């Protein structure tokens, strides 16, 4: 077949162009992403004090479980995502459902306003919240004027309230962001399904749980994975909420805001640098992400 040879050389040149187009990205990816990821794992099996490095195998991983600071950071981080992610995603779902109703007025305005927090920088909004939640700050003043509370709440001075503040702040920043994803998916659900369910006598709440949530399941899984990864990396908020910022001796009252990422930073840049041990902590995050991803996909079933 005469055409065969020609199309074969066409395929070959096509393949070459394919590589040409991706080369630049692959070089940068390899150097600045893949290499550090792999090297970090290698580092996690080393003990490095100053310039000397020794291979210690899994010793660093064993050391973790005897390190009270690591345990504390792990606990704090888990509290954040276990409580915050479900609250936020549920709120985002409800907002998206409400705003998907075409009879609601000013939908565009509401959508834009609720999305707006997502454009602020993490540092800027955190500092804003730090001022609002100060002991004599706006929130306490307002709550006391409304006679909701008698005494000011020690938002940033009490270990539990400090966590509550972070959870409120995170929810403010990210709910609208997730809502936009849900809104887009909701627009793909044919209205007839809802109409049929309505005829069958299903109320709004039943329609929400039996049509909306199952239809959005893949996206809910996706957003919960992304939010979980985000929360596991929590750094900007705890750093900037605590008194003294980067140089603070504790992150939040009684280290209640010490997260894994903050701990890694401290291990590398605040204490005597121990890159090997810090890399070990960072790989714990990778393992948690991997496990959670698998679980979340299992929960969602095999769709996508």
């Amino acid at each position: 077949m005469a055409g065969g040879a020609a199309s074969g050389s066409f395929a070959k040149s096509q393949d070459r162009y394919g590589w040409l187009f991706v080369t630049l990205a692959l070089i940068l990816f390899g150097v600045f992403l893949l290499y550090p990821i792999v090297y970090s794992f290698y580092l996690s099996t080393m003990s490095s004090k100053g310039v000397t490095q020794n291979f210690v195998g899994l010793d660093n991983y064993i050391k973790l479980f005897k390190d009270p600071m690591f345990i504390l950071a792990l606990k704090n981080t888990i509290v954040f995502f276990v409580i915050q992610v479900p609250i936020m995603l549920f709120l985002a779902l409800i907002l998206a459902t409400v705003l998907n109703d075409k009879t609601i007025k000013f939908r565009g305005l509401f959508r834009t306003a609720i999305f707006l927090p997502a454009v602020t920088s993490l540092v800027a909004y955190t500092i804003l919240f730090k001022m609002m939640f100060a002991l004599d700050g706006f929130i306490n003043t307002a709550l006391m004027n409304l006679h909701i509370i008698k005494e000011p709440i020690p938002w940033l001075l009490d270990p539990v309230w400090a966590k509550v503040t972070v959870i409120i702040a995170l929810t403010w920043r990210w709910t609208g962001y997730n809502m936009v994803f849900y809104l887009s998916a909701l627009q793909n659900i044919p209205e007839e399904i809802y109409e049929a369910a309505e005829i069958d006598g299903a109320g709004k709440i039943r329609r929400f749980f039996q049509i909306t949530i199952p239809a959005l399941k893949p996206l809910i899984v996706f957003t919960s994975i992304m939010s979980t990864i985000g929360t596991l990396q929590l750094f900007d908020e705890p750093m900037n909420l605590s008194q003294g910022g980067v140089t603070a001796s504790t992150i939040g009252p009684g280290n209640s805001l010490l997260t894994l990422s903050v701990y890694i930073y401290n291990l590398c840049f605040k204490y005597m640098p121990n890159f090997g041990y810090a890399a070990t902590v960072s790989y714990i995050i990778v393992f948690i992400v991997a496990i959670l991803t698998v679980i979340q996909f299992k929960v969602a079933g095999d769709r996508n």
Partner: protein
Amino acid sequence: MKRILVYAFLISAFVISVFPFYWMVVGMTNSAVDVIKGKMTFGGQLFNNLKILFSSYDMAGVLLNSLKISGLTVIGTLIVASMAAYGFEMYSSASREKVYSILLLSMMVPFAALMIPLFRLIVKLGLLNKHSALILTSIASVFIIFFFRQSFKSFPKEIIQAARVDGAGEFSIFFFIVIPSMKSTYAAAAIYSFMTSWNAYLWPLIVLQNDKQKTVTLLISSMSSAYFPEYGVIMAAIVIATLPIITVFFTLQKHFVQGMLGSVKQ
């Protein structure tokens, strides 16, 4: 009755979302004491706060730094990431699909896990305290490659075929036919990339240790951790730092939402 509840819910969500923005604009015009007391009305300190911000701090310098870093990052990312996405999508091959899945997997790896070797690499390359340390490391954004690829999926392949028949080269097809017809996607990617770069904190904090090279985000952070924070001045800095993003967002909002939705729908 139900209607009223729905609107009450939406209006409270609206107020909660927007209030901090109002408050930061008001705060910019007030003294430190008034800000922390939660004064809700405009004051007369705007000029004074701005004066302090631009004289006691190197606000102009850090603004220029941030603009330079974010601008170059956006340009680099748009070119490199969209080319890569085009290569993955339009020239299908099994081996490139494998590479692509490695890329996607790497999105799951938190930044903390690569930060240490990356920092040492930057030191070795002599890029510590250089803006290129921020730009080079963020150009190959896997998320943006993914984003572009999702959008290229809906690009009509017939147009490319027709251009080939007309004798156009592969690169000129990409640069002169594909790019101009995907403005929405490029705008959305540009906003995303600009926002990420402008707002970055942890990586700049590590790599930029000289005051002269610092970014707006780093300056705001260090201002607020001062022993006696000047809240009115900080508010002014926050407003100035947030303004470019909000402006960019509102002017390109249509594209951004369209682009985001386009990538999700696939």
